[in-house]
Structures are given as C-alpha cells and as structure tokens.
C-alpha cells in the first residue's frame, strides 16, 4: 500500500498554468497545464486535479480552510483557455441576441505589424464540439 504524504508548496496560478515552488525557492519545482482537466472537491478542505488523458492519476491539494479551497476551485475552473473561449462565444452571442449584430472590440493594443486588433482567434479547423456528454 502506498501512502502519499502531503508536501507543503507555494502554489501560483498564472494564466492556464499552475506552478508550484518549494518554500523560499525562486524557481518552480514544476507546473501543470490546466487544459483538459477536471477539478474535484475532496473531503474537508481539499481538491484534486484529474487530467482527461490520465484519469487514474490525481493531483491532490489540501488548503488551510474551506473558503480557501472554494476560491481555488473556482479560480482553477476558470483558468483554462478553453473555458475563456467558451465565455467569449457565450457573451458574443448574448450581445448579438440583443443588438442583432456582433459586438465590436475597441483597439486594445498596438503591435509592430498590425493596427487593428480583433477578437482572439476563432478556432475551427478541427471543428470540435464541446459536448458535455464526452468524458
């Protein structure tokens, strides 16, 4: 029987990556890409990450409090690029329903080459359907 011991780590969420550091170390020990994963509440003040391609492996975390745990779960759920993409589609559609046309994005940033920034990329070549039924 294998018993896992929880190690204390400083955990930092940056965009869709979860970095973890040993206390007082500058460089992270490791990182987890937060795409194609599920976040699950664990008993008491814990949560775990399970990746779609490796469902038997759980990355478990224990927080100091239930509130903190809930905050992490919420933050990690929203941390995937795919989640953001779906939010974008949703809001655009909602605005379109009201105004009858797609919303405009103000120029947000100038770039060396382009002057007219637009929506983030709209994926489509593989035509994946985000289907709730799929595991």
């Amino acid at each position, binding site marked *: 029987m294998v018993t896992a011991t929880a190690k204390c780590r400083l955990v930092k969420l*940056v*965009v*869709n990556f979860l970095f973890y550091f040993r206390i007082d170390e500058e*460089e992270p020990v*490791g*990182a*987890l*890409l*937060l*795409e*194609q*994963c*599920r*976040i*699950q*509440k664990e008993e008491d003040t814990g949560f775990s990450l399970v*990746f*779609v*391609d*490796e469902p038997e492996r759980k990355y478990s975390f224990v927080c100091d409090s239930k509130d903190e745990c809930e905050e992490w*779960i*919420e933050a990690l*759920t929203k941390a*995937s*690029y*795919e*989640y*953001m*993409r*779906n*939010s*974008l*589609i949703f*809001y655009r*559609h909602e*605005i379109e*329903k*009201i*105004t*009858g046309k797609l*919303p405009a*994005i103000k120029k*947000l940033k100038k*770039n*060396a*080459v382009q002057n007219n*920034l*637009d929506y*983030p*990329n*709209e*994926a*489509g*070549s*593989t035509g*994946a*359907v*985000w*289907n*709730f039924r799929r595991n």
Partner: protein
Amino acid sequence: MKLNERSVAYYATCDSPTDKTGYLHKKGERNTAYHRRWFVLKGNLFFYFEEKDSKDPIGVIILEGCTVELCESSEDYAFAIKFDSAKSRTYKMAAESQREMESWVKALSRASFDYMRIVVKELEKQLEEMQQNRSSSRKTQKKSLLRKQPNYPHSTPLISHNFSVSYKIPVKENGYVPWNTIQDQTIDSELNGKAHSVNDNNDISKCVLDHPPERPLHTQRLPPPLPPRRRSATGGVTSAVGGLMLAQDDNAPTGVFSFTRLHEWFGRDIIQVRRQWQENKFGSIDQSQPDQIV
C-alpha cells in the same frame, strides 16, 4: 522544472479547438539552420511537430508576454516571437508565402491568455451595460411575470417547478423580442457551442441536454431543456426569465448574469446525468470519479 508533459502532449493532439495549423520554418537554437516543422496553435500554446502526421509534438512555445514582429532574415517572409525577459530565447520563423506570414503574425499576436481575458471582460461589461439599460427601460413598462428580489444572498428562487406558465408577449425593444416570454422556450446557450472559422458565425451547434438529438446538432435550433429548480450552492438568487435561469452574480447588479454561474448550473445537471448513466452502465457509482466540468 517538471511539467505534466503527457497531458500537454495530449492537449496538442486532442480534438479541442485549433486556432491555426501549417508549415513554418523555424530557426534552430544550436543548429542555426531553419527547419521545416508542422505548427499547431491552440489557445496560448504554439506546438510544433516534426511532421504533420507525427504523433507527439517535439516542442511548445507558450505565447504569454511576447510580441510578434517582422524581422530581418536570410529567409523570406520571416517574423520573430520575442519575449520581455532577456533570458528568453527569440524564436525566428519563416513562412512560405506573404499571405501565410501575415496570417500567422495576426494569429500569434492575439493568442495570449491575457488578451483573451481582456476581451472577455470587455464583452461582459458591454452585456452588463445593455442589460442594465434594458431593465431600467422595462421599469416603465407593464411588468411581466418576472420578479426580482432586491437582496439575494439567501433568497429562495422564485421559479416554479412547472415551467409551462403562460407569459404575455412583450413589446419589442430595439427589435429584440425577449425570447424568455415565449411559452415553453428553453435556453439557447452556446456553452456547448462549436467554434467555427472566422467567417462563419451562424452555424453553431446547440447542445441539447438530457435528450439525445434527433437531428445533427448543428441543424437544431432547439435549446436545451431547463435545469430543474434549485437553490444555488452559495444561496444566490436565480430568476426565471421564461425558461432561462439567470444565475445572478452576488456582486453584479440585478439582471446581470455571468457565464460562470451558467456553467455551474449546467454542469450540475450534466454531473447528475452522467452519474445516472454510470449507475445504469456499471451498476454503481465510482466515488473517485471527477464531478466537475471544466
């Protein structure tokens, strides 16, 4: 530094939406020749493979905090991906045509997560403003059956379990007839949407919850059936707008709904459906199964 490489490689090749693919020539780090590689852009991750049909990527460039610029090079149609940090490597790339170069530079420039986040916030704000304008102009109109509670943290939802309540057809506002007042309407949600290419905004699949689709999803205009009445986990109020359950943000003004709450609502139903399916199939529920959708 450790990385969940296997899952990262899986993400590169799984069928999640791809933003752009194609051949590019990449300048090597030690071997400074340009190598032709197959590139796949997914979100803020720029994967490259030895060949188009290679099973696993040989590398990935994380597109955060970078700029994409044209650059001087021995190669034609060259551009560079530069990072803020002096320690970071500059990636020199060359496309195979002017058009491809422009297309890649455009795609890579707007690929960052940060940028996506800014745009989503902007749209969220726009939608919020529109809804506020609508609700303030509605106050002067005859009330529909919708009622909203002023303070929500521990309120009970006002939705009746039986959704076939008759509504008055409202006056059109800005040419928009709120579908919420049409009888038996259910949610038209793009939570399960299919993201299409830039020029095609109409053909978006609707996912139908609970009921298997009789026709291909993309031809259906039927929105999914409603989640049953429930109190939200944090006690937040939900208002019934016809079939749509608006999950109100505790910190947002009345009438504003957020993608996050809807995501949670739909997620719960899916979890339930999946559990039932598992029970039927396997005879018992595996307690270790993840129960949250991301």
